[in-house]
């Protein structure tokens, strides 16, 4: 689905990201884990075409899209960030915003928004203002706002990190079921191993701007390499 070669993102002279090779298969749910400052969000921004890489090539279904930061290309993806960042309007309008930006007919917008509000069990909140929601409700709106776009690739940048445990567990279950039902290719960034074990088929460990290990989640966790063992074992010991 997405391939990246010799991807490099710099801020001035500082190298934020340097990834020789990366591949994401269609329908894959890839988890990206790493410590703070490892470059996880930078990686997502580069893959989602929100930031042009300083070097390297990104292919979408075999087509080089590195220099094609066009609207059409960007509109094939959706991103849900850590903070819900809802607009100053109702839940319905928040979920509808991406469809309206694409100038879809009003009736179609209405139908799609109603469907995804139902999917995320927030239909009753449709008329509520975004500012009056709880953290869990706001994150559901954020995810519905991304999924309503029916993206080819969904990017999730730590959307569960600020939620309390029961809310997080329920939302993880719901998003997993939705991703499976829709077979949406997903890149999921987190620094929480529990979330990743639950959601991701494959796991990539990003440290110091580079992917140190990639593979099926259970495999990476069972056999960390010399670069990732310290980081993974610290997490495993916490969970055990």
């Amino acid at each position, binding site marked *: 689905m997405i391939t990246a070669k010799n991807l490099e993102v710099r801020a001035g002279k500082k190298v934020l990201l340097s990834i020789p090779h990366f591949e994401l298969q269609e329908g894959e749910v890839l988890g990206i884990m790493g410590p703070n400052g490892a470059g996880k969000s930078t990686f997502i921004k580069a893959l989602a075409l929100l930031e042009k890489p300083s070097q390297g090539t990104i292919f979408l279904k075999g087509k080089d899209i590195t220099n094609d930061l066009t609207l059409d290309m960007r509109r094939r993806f959706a991103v849900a960030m850590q*903070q819900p*960042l809802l*607009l100053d309007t109702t839940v319905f309008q928040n979920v509808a*915003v*991406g469809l309206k*930006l*694409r100038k879809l007919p009003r009736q179609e917008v209405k139908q799609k928004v109603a469907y995804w509000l139902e999917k995320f069990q927030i239909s009753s909140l449709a008329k509520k*203002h975004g*500012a009056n929601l709880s953290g869990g409700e706001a994150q559901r709106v954020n995810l519905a*706002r991304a999924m309503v776009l029916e993206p080819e690739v969904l990017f999730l940048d730590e959307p569960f990190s600020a939620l309390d445990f029961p809310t997080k567990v329920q939302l993880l279950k719901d998003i997993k079921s939705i991703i499976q039902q829709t077979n949406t290719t997903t890149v999921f960034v987190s620094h929480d191993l529990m979330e990743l074990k639950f959601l991701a088929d494959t796991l990539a460990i990003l440290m110091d701007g580079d992917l140190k290990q990639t593979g099926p989640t259970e495999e990476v966790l069972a056999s960390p390499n010399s670069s990732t063992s310290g980081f993974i074992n610290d997490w495993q010991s916490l969970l055990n």
Partner: protein
Amino acid sequence: MELLLEGLKKAIEMILSGDPEILEITLLTLKVSITAVLISTLIGIPVGMFLGLARFPGRKFILAIINIGMGLPPVVAGLWITLFLWRSGPLGDLAWLYTPTAIIMAQILVSLPIVTALTSTAFQQINPKLILQVKALGATKLQLYWILTKEVKLAILAAIIAGFGRVIAEVGAAMMVGGNISGETRILTTSIVMEVSKGNFDIALALSFILMTLAFIITFSLTYLQQRKRSL
């Protein structure tokens, strides 16, 4: 107290009698003030947005100049406009001095920095991640700016209210560039100054009540628009 009551009585009488001169002064006041605020808004919002969102060398200097402009004494604004519109000035051929256009120009000069500076501050306070999120939702540049403007609409309306407050209360510049000519450039504030200088306190008070009523109605309408209740 007696003087105040007399003034209020006189104001009501003037309004009820439909005095054509008062009506003319009031309409001209509304016309110049609303035009000045409208032009300041049309220029100030995009410029403020640009200064709030863009990063370029010299931006801080420009912001400092605009902030200084917020405190620009109206008589200084009046003096500049007079020099520009004076017969031998750069815009002298237009013959705008002592016309309502000159008053509008002076009022723009005092209200534009307010609208621009407050709008710029509003845009600077937007979370950069929100900009990225709106972009990720598939917004074009124009759609992005429109959404961000809606996000800071409360602050923008506050900027317009502040600009209007400055314009409706302005007297020094209007007197200097308009000349307070009866039937031509006389507005409520300049009339009040003239009536006080003539010792006609009752008429001055009456005019001030009309001015305050106008200011109240317009500011109240803008505030109502700003504070429209969020649906729960």
